[in-house]
């Protein structure tokens, strides 16, 4: 395919996946067509446009009488390296892990469910809130 054909195809694109910036858009952004990446900034939810890397979320599930080690969560976050990661804690009833987790994790999103809510229901609830393209689920251990 010639360069001209490539550009025609890009401009005429009505294709939704992968979501890419049209040629004129990245010309205005200052990114040349020879650059390998279109955008280096991970988008927040609700912002359109292309992303170079997937957005990642970590869901921590704590059914009633379950705890999670903040160090374990921190370890998961460290393992992601430079990736930005949203962390969501979904718990049922009372949880003793929240304060410690909030100290470890900046911008922790907390979802509270009624006591007795099952692990599966907590997972599903949290997934509906998770903005990530790749979502890892971590379940606590019983007290």
């Amino acid at each position, binding site marked *: 395919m010639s360069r001209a054909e490539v550009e025609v*195809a890009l401009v005429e694109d009505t*294709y939704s996946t992968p979501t890419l910036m049209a040629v004129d858009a990245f010309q205005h952004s200052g990114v040349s067509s020879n650059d390998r990446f279109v955008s280096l900034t991970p988008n927040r939810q609700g912002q359109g446009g292309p992303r170079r890397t997937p957005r990642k979320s970590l869901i921590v599930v704590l059914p009633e009488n379950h705890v999670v080690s903040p160090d*374990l969560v921190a370890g*998961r976050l460290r393992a992601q390296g430079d990736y930005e990661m949203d962390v969501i804690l979904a718990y049922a009833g009372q949880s003793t892990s929240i304060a410690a987790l909030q100290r470890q994790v900046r911008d922790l999103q907390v979802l509270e469910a009624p006591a007795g809510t099952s692990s599966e229901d907590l997972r*599903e609830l949290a997934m509906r809130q998770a903005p990530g393209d790749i979502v890892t689920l*971590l379940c606590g251990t019983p007290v």
Partner: protein
Amino acid sequence: MSAKSREPESLRSREGHPLIVESLQLSVIVSAHNSSATLSEVLAAIRSSDVPRDSYEVIVVDDASTDGSVAIAARYADTVVKLTGRQSGPAYARNRGVELTGAPVLAFVDADVVVRRETLPRMLQILNERPDIDAVSASHADTSGAQNFVSQYWNLLLRFGEQRHTSTSAQFAPGCGAVRRQAFIAAGMYDEWRFATACLENVELGERLLGTGRGVLLSSELSVTHLKRWDLLSVFREVWVRSRLLARSLGYSRMSAVAPSDVVFTLSRALTPAVALLATLMLAAAFVPAPHASAKVGAALLVLLLTNLPVHRFYASTRGFAFALLSAPLHTLVEIVAGVALCLGWILRDVFGDVSPDATTQAYAEVGHEIWPPVPRKL
């Protein structure tokens, strides 16, 4: 089943992340597209496998579903990948799942396939005990999840092909298969460039594994239940797509040597002698006085029955004479669809060449932008 895997999820849920759990042996990757009707049963069956919970992880790659499959996946999976936009196909989705794991063995389970408790551990055992085998897949069970006639017919047809060729065929069958990660990567992973639909991507992968000197086994001992409900239209469409794609993209003769148990070969092998015999009879009829119309019909039916005798006998032995009788006209129609599609595939191959993605995808791939989700990659 080990005592550990009988424990409630909360007790055994040290979620398997490749970077955290060193004992991770197996990564089960399920690609799903609008699979809410079956996904729960499929994932529950995987989680009930006789494999210690710490030693495997479940990754569900949701291929742009719009039916809530993601929420169902979240109930059972360790990792959920959400692909957005339009459907990219299981080859693409499974490759994205593989990129997230470091497990030495990868198992691919379709979102409408229920494994038995022993399926995954037995696959692991085969790979552990036989260094000459790098990929092992399971065959179709006797019964399908859906009880309607067409589903039973189709399931048995696939099983017939697998049973007939398991001793000779080294095929990586669709549905459920496990492969060593190293072999999978060395073979180039799934061909996400050409296989944008759920069709023959496993067979093609099996061929490449064999081509790199890897051992591939289609096990008759292992069987899995397919839940998908088939109707006439979906069976005809499946046969049409498989046959056309096979002839156009892969080459019938090349693939027939590698995957003789595939349904296309099961169908076309019976069709070819049937057509030859019918042509001979018609030629002979030219030299005799015109027979009665019913005699012509009778001769044609007899030819079809005789050429498909092994299939009909298989149906009769597994489901009874009435089922075999009912399936005969359906089987004839399916064979005709396969024959026409194969011919069309050959013509398209000669005129247009191999299948390739649409111009937009090719353009993106050529420019080489790195984005998420990635542009389909060429082998």
